């Protein structure tokens, strides 16, 4: 039994095994480890961009004010002046992108106002709250209060949201 290498054959076979094992490690590693893994840490670098890729639903106040600049003017000095538009009107990035395609819907004051102003012992005591049924007597809040500046009476003819922007 001789492969022509004599005793050296033992070393050659071990070295060959070692080289094959190393090669297999790199091939399998390239196959199983996703691209970008480890660029910043023990995770896939592309996952950061995946998280950034989602579209935005809330456009932000700056986008609203571009067309509806009269509203912050009306709310000025009132208790609602710092509230962002979409806190009450809901997410409207679609409307901001294409006002003709996606219309904003006027919220129902009796539902909307009560969310914040219905009396609740867990609310901070200094926050203005009312027993809705007793305070309104079934009347809509906007009969007496201007929604954007509730210390004031409502404007004479509220603008019709179906006719687009209020400006």
């Amino acid at each position, binding site marked *: 039994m001789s492969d022509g290498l004599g005793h050296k054959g033992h070393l050659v076979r071990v070295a060959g095994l070692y080289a094959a094992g190393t090669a297999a490690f790199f091939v399998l590693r390239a196959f199983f480890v996703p691209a970008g893994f480890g660029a910043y840490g023990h995770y*896939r670098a592309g996952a950061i961009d*995946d998280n950034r890729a989602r*579209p935005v639903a809330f456009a*932000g106040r700056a986008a609203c004010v571009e067309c509806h600049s009269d509203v912050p003017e009306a709310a000025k000095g009132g208790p609602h002046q710092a509230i962002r538009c979409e806190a009450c009107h809901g*997410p409207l990035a679609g409307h901001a992108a294409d006002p003709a395609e996606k219309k904003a819907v006027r919220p129902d004051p009796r539902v909307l106002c009560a969310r914040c102003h219905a009396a*609740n012992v*867990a609310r901070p005591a200094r926050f203005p709250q009312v027993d809705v049924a007793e305070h309104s007597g079934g009347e809509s809040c906007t009969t007496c209060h201007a929604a954007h500046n509730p210390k004031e009476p409502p404007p004479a003819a509220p603008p019709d949201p179906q006719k687009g922007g209020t400006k």
Partner: protein
Amino acid sequence: MNQDRRDFLARSGKLLFLTGAAQLAFESVLRGEPEAAPNYRTTDHWWGMTIDVEKCIGCGNCVRACKEENDVPREPSCFRTWVERYHVPEGDIERPQVDSPNGGYDGFPEKYRAGDGSKNFFVPKLCNHCAHSPCVQVCPVGATFESPDGVVLVDKKYCLGCRYCVQACPYGCRFIDPRTETVDKCSLCYHRITKGLTTACCEACPTDARVLGDLKNPKDPIHEFLRTHKVQVLKPQMATGSKAYYNGLDGSVR
């Protein structure tokens, strides 16, 4: 052959001298689209949030806004943020009664009476975006991580749905999305804050009880808030490096 060597030298040069974001930016410059280069630099930011318990009115705007913005399943077991109502009976701070009907999504119907000596308040909860997150440490595959700008994110393409992280989070901020069987959690609206917008919950909060802050920006008002308020993090004994700073937090809150 010549071309191959050029490629090799260019690639190894980039690897040697440019790392991470710089390499991504350089690649878009090479492609002839420098405008596609990311101008948001993760190393310039370190995000956190302040939550003022004394300002929270429990309206649930944040919960609804979060579900809309991030397409969170409407099931009452899936929340990226939620609001808890605490009822601390007189003299019994150890046994508060806590409820969160549908996470506060539909608001809080009145349940307690005034004048019985109890303490009642709302506590908004969300991922604390810990700097040393227990959830990140237990992930066996690297599918959740602390991004270089301090946001704990999930790699949905890589998550196995093994639920280790759900158990590891001391704040209960993670859930399994029933549609994909992968984990989901607050991403601090990463798609918004990297575009210069605030998070959906902060955008929708009518009393500014929650405010997003960039701790690496010296001009951010968060520094003034942290300096002038006595803030606390949840479960400080766990040393998670939480970046959700609560003002006016009661000792009964867990």
